């Protein structure tokens, strides 16, 4: 099986879902990303990315937790699947390898 590709934003969303643990759904993910990264993300972008990640098998979801604030509608809570965790780990290890391979003087120049 070919390795699934994880886009930059997908990585961010996936990580955020992992961070939020049990309480990850559309609204919390959007707000979390906004607060943590400081970038303005549209809800629709987050929503489609969540959908896509679920299609790819990195996320699973279930519906629950209707509140009056939402007009009685349920939320779709996302959790990271085993495949998702593996993909995240893979990305992390690639990054780390790359960081490790950086020559020390360059690292210094970057203020690291």
């Amino acid at each position, binding site marked *: 099986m070919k390795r699934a590709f994880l886009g930059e934003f997908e990585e961010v969303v996936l990580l955020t879902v992992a961070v939020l643990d049990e309480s990850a759904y559309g609204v919390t993910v959007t707000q979390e990303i906004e607060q943590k990264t400081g970038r303005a993300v549209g809800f*629709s972008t987050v929503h489609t990315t969540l959908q896509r990640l679920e299609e790819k098998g990195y996320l699973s979801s279930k519906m629950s937790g209707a509140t009056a604030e939402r007009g009685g*509608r349920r939320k779709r809570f996302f959790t990271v699947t085993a495949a998702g965790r593996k993909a995240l780990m893979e990305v992390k290890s690639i990054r780390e390898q790359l960081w490790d391979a950086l020559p020390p003087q360059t690292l210094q120049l970057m203020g690291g």
Partner: protein
Amino acid sequence: MKPPTPKPPRWATSLLDWLGDPNTVEEVQGDLLELYAYWVKTVGERKADWRYVLSALKLLRPLANRKKAESNPFFLHPAMVRNYFKIALRNLLKHKGYSGINMGGLAVGMAVALLTGLWIYDELSFNRYHQHYDRIALVMQNQVVNGELHTSQSLPYPFIQELKSNYSSPFKHIVTATHLDDHILTAGETKLSKRGQFIGAEAPEMLTLKMVEGTRAGLQDPQSILLSASTAKALFGNADPINKPVKINTDWLVKVTGVYEDLPQNTQFHDAQFLASWEYFVANNRYMRDKKWDNHALLIYVEIQPNTDFDKATATIKDSELNAIRHLESMKEEAATRPQMWLHPMRDWHLYSDFKNGVVGKGPVQYVWMVGLIGFFVLLLACINFMNLSTARSEKRAKEVGIRKTVGSRRSQLMGQFFSESLLVVFLSFLIALLLATVSLPWFNNLAAKQMTIPWANGYFGLFCLGFIGITGFLAGSYPALYLTSFQPIQVLKGGGSARLQRGRSASIPRQILVVTQFTVSIALIISTLVVYRQIQFAKSRPVGYARDGLLLVPMQSDDFYGKTALLRNELKNTGVVSEVAESQSPITGVWSSNEGFSWKGMPPGLNERFATLTVSPEYAETVGWQFSGGRNFSKELASDSAGFIINETAAKLLGFRQPVGEFVRWKSQWMTNNVEKQFRILGVVKDMVMESPFKPIKPTVFFLFGSPNWINIKIRPGADAGNALSQIEAVFKKLIPAAPFEYKFADEEYDAKFRAEERIGKLATFFAVLAIFISCLGLFGLASFVAEQRTKEIGVRKVMGASVLNLWRLLSKDFMVLVLLAFGIATPVAAYFLRSWLQQYDYRTELSWWIFAASGVGALVITLLTVSFQSIKAALMNPVKSLRSE
């Protein structure tokens, strides 16, 4: 409490509701609401609104998540398509009767559409055989005569020189020609009368004739002739015709320099069985050169240069003749007609060749429209059948649709199923239609006087067939596909009577509309057929004014005839089979000469009436059986009779004398009296003779003795055997005029030929009407059987309760009768309108009598009744025990 919480824009929410992905719409809307509240708090209401709308818009389905959420197979998945066809085939085989009616009707309709399509193609492709087809034109001339614009193709001789020397720049070829005419061709012992033209040397090149032998340069030598392949075969058999001598009109010696492939029947030059040199014609007819601007006798074909168009070329030559004759003293009268030259493109020769006062008349193009329309209607009728039967049978398929829907079929998939079903039926019907068309083509060719073939090898034809199947399949399948797939599964599966009834009532209305449409078309066609036949009968029963039986017409084709007529007459009468012989100008079935310049006592000033002016010999009266209504015949003994007229009743009415016999008419004509006014005494008045079209008014006619007759009329003695008489007459001609072949026409056959165009329309109309009725009845038959079947239980209960067969029959037939009556009500005014305008073109025409409409209505009603009764009586006779036992 807080002031009312701000609400997100309603429309965005509904939009999302409607177009959002149904699988995620719930949480998306919830999330958005939650976010909205958050946004209102953090960035204010306006920005929140804006963000909400933007997010909602981005989440609409076409933009977001394109993937199908359901794991439904694509509706054109091969497995599905195979399944569709399997079910379709099973359905066809299960209901053989319905399938037969369906496909039979559709096949007949498609065959008709194919035939009419071929016919239209043939009409539209007229003259396309010539490669330079769209650059060839005929030079035409408009002249104002008596305040009316006359259009003619005949041009004066001096115009050739004028055109060639002063106006030649827009033209690639300028080709002069004589009118198409019969000429005698002699090769050795073989003598044939063939139609041909004397034409300029560039003609074969311009017309891109396909030479079988020789070259297109064959006419360069004046003493040469090009023969069509069939003429060459008729003259020389299988021998090589090249360089063989041929005599034209017995004395002009030419040699064959080429043979061209026969021109197809749908070309204007098809009738030209040989082409000879124009130069040679002029050389042999020196008088041609002396003809002035006011004698119109020849044709000029042109091919324009590729860099110009007809309009520009027309503009160039428009006043060419007028400019040339404006200052000529002798051409004052001609110039007064303001001759205008223009180009009539080859592509319009066939369909737009009627000119009335300078404007294109209806002409043959109206028949193209008419036939196309009728072909379309017949096909439509067949499609309606298909729709009606499919929807009527929907009861049977409703459960299938219900099951399919509950199992998870989408509407689009079911539509695909029904469309593929109709495509299958249409495809099978098309195969039958092709067979039918192929089989009936010779007969149709005969009817339409054409030589059409089905262009199997033509790639476009294949393409056309596919398109045709597609369109018909779509037309016929659209209604069932839309209607059947709209069922609610819960209703059909519950199978409750109420649901069925509800559906039945609203569903039967479109069906009824379709039946009414069918019968409207059918009844209109019946009415048209009747009217066309009435018109023909009406004209046929018109008093003719002469006796056609045993009247033989012989054209004097060559000079050999002249001076021998007295001898001929004697010899012919001596055979004993001939009662009288006379000469005349024009055959009795045509008026070939008419002139102006008459004046008489009491004539309204300024009138310059055109009379038919015909030369006859004194025996003419006896030969054709003139019926005198006053006065006497010409007499050979009285020399003064050479200044006498016999006139017909129309002329007598025009002249206005109370007692025309003995009165005088003065006549001054350039052609007939050498421009000198002469006085003629009216000797007798004869009954009007129908010499020209029997649908037109009779021309005022004068008969006289001087002039040059060109036909011999021979009356065979009544009671004589025609075959024997003919061979005796031929023997006399062979003996006295050996150079010319014996050519003759029978007056009655010539007369009957005048009705041919109308009879053809009549036959075509009958053909279409019969088919339309057949197809409509086929549909009705299926529908009636369906209704009877549907109401089996009702009929059973009614019978048990004591209803009689008659009651039941009335119950079942009534509905259909109402529809037919309605159709009759619509068809009558529509048909009346169109037929009235059709009849307008005939001067001598029948009236649209009410009984024609009544008869058509009654006829349609009877046919419907018969069709429906078969089914309804069958249903009414059924044993109720059988129909009720399953309950």
